[in-house]
C-alpha cells in the first residue's frame, strides 16, 4: 500500500466557484468549460448538493487501486507519492479499469481512433513529482481542497469532525473505502445524498482476484501432473485389457 500524499476535500468549505475545475482543465490542456459530470475532458467537477453544500468529484487515488491491479499491462500504476497514473502508450484499451473501479471514475474516449482512459492523475507529471501541489489545491480560494501528507490530512479531518460534531457527518470518506484512498472527503450534515458512491467495500479490492491468481503457480503443475498421471494410468489399463483380449482369442 502506497499512500504518501493526498487531498482533503471539506464539503462545508466549498463555495462551488469551480476554480479547481478550470485549473485542472488548464493543467491537462483541456478546453476550459463548466464541468457537469466526470468525462474524458473533465477530471473533476463540483456539483450542488441539496441543502446548500457543494460536492467535488475526482479520482480517489486508492492505496491499492483496483484499476491498476486489473490492468493486463500495468498501463495504470500507483506512484510512491500515492498518485494513480496512466500510460496510454502501452494501454490495450480493454477497459477493465473502467469496469473494476469501485468509484466509477475512469472515463473512456469513445469517439477517438486512439482512445485513452481519462481520469485525474493528481497532477503527477507536471506538479506532484516535482514536489508541488496539484493545480486544484493551489487555486482553491477557501481551503476546501488541500494537499498534504495523507496521515496529516486524516488527522486534520478527524480534528474538524471532533471539534464540530453537529456540523460534520462522523466519517472520513476515503479513510477505509476500497482499503483507504489518498483523496479523502468530509461531508456536512444534510439530509441529501452527496452523490459520492455508497456501499463501496471497506477493504482493498485486488485481493478478491489475487486470492485466485496466487493459486495458479501451484495449479499448473498439479493439473499438468494429474493429467499426465491419468494418461499413463488409462493407457496401461487399455494395454492390459488388450493383452487379455488377445490371450482369450488365442
Amino acid at each position, binding site marked *: 500500500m502506497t499512500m504518501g500524499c493526498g487531498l482533503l476535500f471539506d464539503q462545508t468549505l466549498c463555495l462551488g466557484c469551480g476554480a479547481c475545475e478550470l485549473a485542472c482543465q488548464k493543467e491537462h490542456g483541456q478546453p476550459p468549460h463548466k464541468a457537469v459530470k466526470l468525462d474524458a475532458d473533465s477530471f473533476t467537477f463540483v456539483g450542488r448538493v441539496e441543502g446548500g453544500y457543494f460536492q467535488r468529484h475526482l479520482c480517489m487515488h486508492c492505496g491499492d487501486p483496483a484499476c491498476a491491479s486489473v490492468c493486463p499491462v*500495468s498501463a495504470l500504476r500507483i506512484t510512491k507519492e500515492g498518485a494513480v497514473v496512466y500510460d496510454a502508450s502501452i494501454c490495450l484499451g480493454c477497459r477493465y479499469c473502467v469496469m473494476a473501479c469501485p468509484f466509477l471514475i475512469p472515463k473512456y474516449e469513445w469517439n477517438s481512433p486512439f482512445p485513452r482512459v481519462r481520469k485525474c492523475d493528481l497532477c503527477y507529471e507536471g506538479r506532484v513529482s516535482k514536489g508541488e501541489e496539484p493545480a486544484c489545491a493551489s487555486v482553491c480560494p477557501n481551503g476546501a481542497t488541500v494537499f498534504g501528507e495523507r496521515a496529516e490530512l486524516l488527522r486534520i479531518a478527524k480534528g474538524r469532525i471532533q471539534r464540530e460534531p453537529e456540523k460534520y457527518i462522523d466519517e472520513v470518506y476515503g479513510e477505509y473505502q476500497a482499503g483507504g484512498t489518498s483523496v479523502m472527503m468530509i461531508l456536512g450534515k444534510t439530509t441529501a445524498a452527496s452523490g459520492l458512491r455508497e456501499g463501496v467495500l471497506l477493504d482493498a479490492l485486488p485481493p478478491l482476484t489475487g486470492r485466485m491468481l496466487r493459486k495458479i503457480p501451484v495449479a499448473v503443475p498439479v493439473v499438468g501432473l494429474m493429467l499426465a498421471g491419468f494418461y499413463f494410468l488409462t493407457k496401461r489399463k487399455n494395454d492390459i485389457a488388450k493383452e487379455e483380449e488377445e490371450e482369450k482369442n488365442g
Partner: protein
Amino acid sequence: MARGRKPFLLVLAAIPALPAYILFMRFVHGLGAVTNLTDDMPWGLWKAFNVFSGVALASGGFTITAAVVIFHLEKFRPVVRPAVLTAFIGYMMVILSLVVDVGRPWNLWRPLFYWNERSVLWEVGLCVIFYTTVLFLEFLPLVWEKLGFRGGIRFWGWLTPVFVIAGVTLSFLHQSSLGSVYLIVPGKLHPLWYSPALPLFFFLSSVALGLAVTSCGAHYSSRAFGKSFEPLITESLGRATAVVMIIYLAARTLDLGMRGNLDKAFRMDTASLFFQAETALLGLLPAALLLFPAFRRDPGRVAGAQATVVLGIVLNRMNVTLTAFQLGTGARYIPHVFEVAVSLIILCAGSALFYLAVKHLPVFGAGESISSPPAHKAPEKVRMGT
C-alpha cells in the same frame, strides 16, 4: 453437393461490404461510432457473445481431447478432429473479436512483455495466446495428412499427449479465469450471479458446454456433410453432459443457499426470470431429460437437448456480462445494430472457415486421429482384420 452450396457462398461473398463500412467507422471514428458502449457499460455484446461465450463454445476442444488422448476413451476418437478444429477456429474468432473490441489493438501483444501478475486479464491474455498456439499445433496433423507428409504425422503422433496436456491445463486456467474476471466487482454484479466461486462455475459449465457442442456438432455435421457417427458417441456425450450439468447446477444452488440469496431466484423480477431461463429452462430441463436412457436412444432428441444446454450456458455468459452487470450498476445498454452485425459476421466467418476446412482437410473419418502414432495403430488394424 457443390451445387446446393452455391447460393450460400454467394451470400457470403456479398457480405464483406457491411463489415468494411463498420470497420472503417470503428477505426476512424472510434468505438462510439458503431457501439452503444458508455462509461457505465464499458463491455458490451462483443465481449459478452464473441469473447466470453466464444471461449466457452470452444471448450469442446479440451474436453474431447482430454477424454480421448488423456483418458483413452477411444469411442470418442471420431469427434476429436471436428472438436479441435471448432476450438481452433473459435479461438481465432475470439482474437478477431478482440481486435475489433479493444481500443488499441496494436498493443494486444503487450501482455507477453509487460507483465502484471495481479491482473486476471493479463493471465487470460496469455492463455489466449498460448492456447491458440497449442490448438494450431493440434490442428497441424490434418495439414500433414492432406500433404501426405508422413514424417510430420509420425512426429505429431508422439507429441500429441504433450500438446493435449498443455491444452487442457491452459483451458482449465482460461475457462475459470473468465469467471475470476468478475471477482473484483462485488458491488456491480447482481447477487444471483456474483459469487467467489465464479471461476469454478465457469469451468464446470465450460466442460458441459464442450460436451454439448461436440454432440450437436457431430449430429448436425453428420447430416450436413453426409458423415455418420456411431449413435453411441452422442448417447455417451448426452449422459456425460447431464452429469456435469447437474453437478454444476447443484454447486450454484448450494452457493446461493449458503450465501442467503436463494430467495432472489424466485422473486419473479427481471433478475430471477433471466436466472430461471438460464438454469431451469435451458439447464436443468435438458440435463434431466438426458439422464433417461430411453430419451438418449433417439439421436435427434439428444441433439435437441444438447442444443438447449448450449443456449443455456451461452445465456449464462451473457447474463454475467450484460444482465447481471446492468442490474447491479443500474446502467442501461442495448447493443447497437452494428454491434449485432459484427457479432453475427464473426460467427458466420467462423462457420465459413469450418466449412472450408471440412471440404479441404481430412476432418471427418479418413485419418486415424490427431493423436496416436500411425506406426502404433497400424498393426492393431491388421490384427483385427485377421
